[in-house]
């Protein structure tokens, strides 16, 4: 049955074969189910399998419905890429996930550029030729010839442009996240004019491409798009990377969708739309969690790694209390409920495993321990959740901001590890603060606060002083996060 269907499909590769279209549709539905599975951890792995099945269907359908002149090369290419991808995925440390995702985005972007160029160079293979007139050049005049259809040219131009932006933007995001390039924003003078001008040039060239399918136009679009992707991301600080990574995720989707239009391929269009929507929603969630407009994030210039030049005058002059690991161990073992608020600092210190040991020790003493995760904690959406999952913290101990924020008033100890701005009450009270309006944890309502921080000198990425440091019930634990938690564990075990 299947083979007869495939035989029919192969016979009529270029005519519209309903079975081929149907197979791509099934692949698209599998991708929808892949995302649907992620609505809960128990269904998520099933979802991932659907994704794999969908991909297999799409690839096999393509291979059996085209006359293949170079099967060995194709299989070798898949084997090389597959091996690299598989080994990387096995070896990567969970703390390095943000840069891995950024690197993967850049590959999708580059693949889109390559496919766009291949379609331009060999339009016949993609079935996008239509009869038209072409300026033959060299005084040959205008001749009747097969040309790339104008609609396809727009799709191709946009696909290449979005792909190129995704590529160069993701490369910069990767370098910043991996610490191979300073996370500090790099500000060029007049960058808004340059950026808008470049974008306008890309759109105008794409429009002109419908009139003239010369090579230089598509080459210029490609080069300009590579440049704009670079320019767009360099002024964005390390701390805004969750938004950038989500945005580039979205772009990689739109690039795939644009190519899907060129190829009239349902699987690519559905997937592109899904991924585009996914990235856009994640960007929106991140922006809302920082109370910042998407445009202001994209305009850049906010927050380097060290966050200098803040509004906090005389920040170390105010009195604050220093606590010890023993203090923390004693207070927490006496508590009924402890809420732990992890942030990027936990990831940097790789403290998730010792933190889980701490929660185990506390649970043995009958203490309720919960984790509170802010949407922008870490360098990508859900970053903290993955790290806690890696350390075998059960996911039903981990809570989102709005689900747990009401509980601080009934909480004995709030334990802040590597987070800062997400607990800053200035976001609620100080209208002049750069983080005003950002939803924050009400740790000031907890009876006791422990705040792990490397030193009193540095402030959060927003460069704002934090009143929590100076509250009566706060004890600062000044040390490396992992070392401090290890000491607390020792004290708890005694």
């Amino acid at each position, binding site marked *: 049955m299947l083979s007869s269907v495939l035989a029919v499909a192969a016979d009529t590769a270029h005519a*519209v074969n309903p079975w081929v279209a149907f197979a791509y549709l099934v692949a698209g539905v599998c991708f929808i189910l892949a*995302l*649907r599975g*992620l*609505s809960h*951890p*128990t269904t*998520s*792995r099933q979802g*991932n399998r659907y*994704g794999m099945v969908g991909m297999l269907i799409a*690839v096999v359908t393509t291979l059996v419905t085209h006359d293949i*002149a*170079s099967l060995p090369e194709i299989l070798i*290419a*898949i*084997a090389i*890429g*597959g091996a*690299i*991808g*598989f080994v*990387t*995925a*096995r070896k990567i440390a969970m703390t390095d996930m943000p840069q891995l*995702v950024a690197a*993967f985005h850049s*590959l*999708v972007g*580059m*693949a889109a550029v*390559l496919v766009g*160029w*291949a*379609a331009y*160079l*060999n339009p*016949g*293979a993609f079935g996008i030729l239509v009869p038209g007139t072409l300026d033959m050049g060299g005084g040959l005049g205008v001749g009747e010839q097969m040309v790339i259809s104008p*609609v396809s040219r727009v799709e191709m131009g946009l696909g290449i442009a979005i792909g190129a932006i995704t590529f160069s933007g993701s490369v910069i995001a990767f370098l910043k996240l991996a610490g191979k390039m300073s996370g500090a924003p790099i500000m060029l003078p007049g960058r808004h004019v340059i950026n808008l001008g470049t974008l306008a040039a890309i759109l105008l060239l794409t429009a002109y491409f419908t009139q003239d399918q010369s090579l230089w136009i598509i080459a210029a679009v490609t080069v300009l798009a590579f440049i704009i992707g670079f320019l767009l991301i360099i002024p964005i600080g390390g701390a805004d990377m969750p938004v950038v990574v*989500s945005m580039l995720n979205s772009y990689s989707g739109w690039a*795939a969708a644009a190519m899907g239009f*060129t190829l*009239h391929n*349902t699987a690519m*269009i559905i997937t592109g*739309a899904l*991924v585009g*929507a996914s*990235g856009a929603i*994640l960007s929106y969630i991140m922006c809302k969690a920082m109370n910042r407009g998407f445009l202001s994030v994209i305009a850049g210039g906010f927050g380097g790694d060290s966050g200098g030049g803040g509004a906090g005058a005389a920040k170390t002059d105010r009195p604050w209390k220093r606590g010890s690991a023993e203090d923390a161990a004693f207070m927490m073992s006496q508590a009924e409920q402890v809420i732990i608020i992890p942030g990027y600092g936990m990831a940097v210190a790789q403290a998730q495993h010792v933190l889980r040991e701490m929660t185990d020790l506390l649970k043995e003493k009958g203490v309720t321990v919960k984790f509170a995760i802010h949407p922008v904690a870490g360098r990508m959406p*859900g*970053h903290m*959740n*993955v790290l806690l*999952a890696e350390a*075998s913290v*059960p*996911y039903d*101990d981990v809570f989102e901001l709005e689900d747990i924020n009401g509980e601080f008033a009934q909480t004995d100890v709030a334990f802040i590890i590597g987070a800062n701005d997400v607990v800053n009450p200035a976001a609620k009270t100080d209208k002049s603060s750069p983080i005003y309006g950002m939803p924050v944890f009400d740790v000031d309502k907890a009876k006791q606060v422990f705040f792990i921080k490397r030193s009193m000198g540095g402030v959060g990425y927003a460069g704002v002083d934090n009143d929590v440091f100076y509250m009566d019930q706060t004890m600062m634990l000044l040390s490396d996060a992992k070392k401090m938690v290890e000491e607390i564990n020792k004290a708890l075990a005694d």
Partner: protein
Amino acid sequence: MDFVAILSIFVMACFVGYYVVWSVTPALHTPLMAVTNAISSVIIVGALIAAANAGSPAAKWLGLIGIVLASVNIFGGFAVTERMLAMYKKKERPAPKAEGK
């Protein structure tokens, strides 16, 4: 398929994506990014078409490079998603405690 038919699929898929993605639990946002990464590599279809066709050597090579890049993403993306999802565990305690939502 004509342009309007394709556009219809695209617009509908945007809406499906919108509702499906909002239903993803925030705890799984990192696996969501990893798996969207993997599935957006369905762009490999385009690369396969280019590489399979003998018409233009240049297009063929671009296609082959595209296949390598997309394969890194497909295998890497699904594998890393699988690895992450396998780490999400429920509480081991047998007695399920009522946890007010």
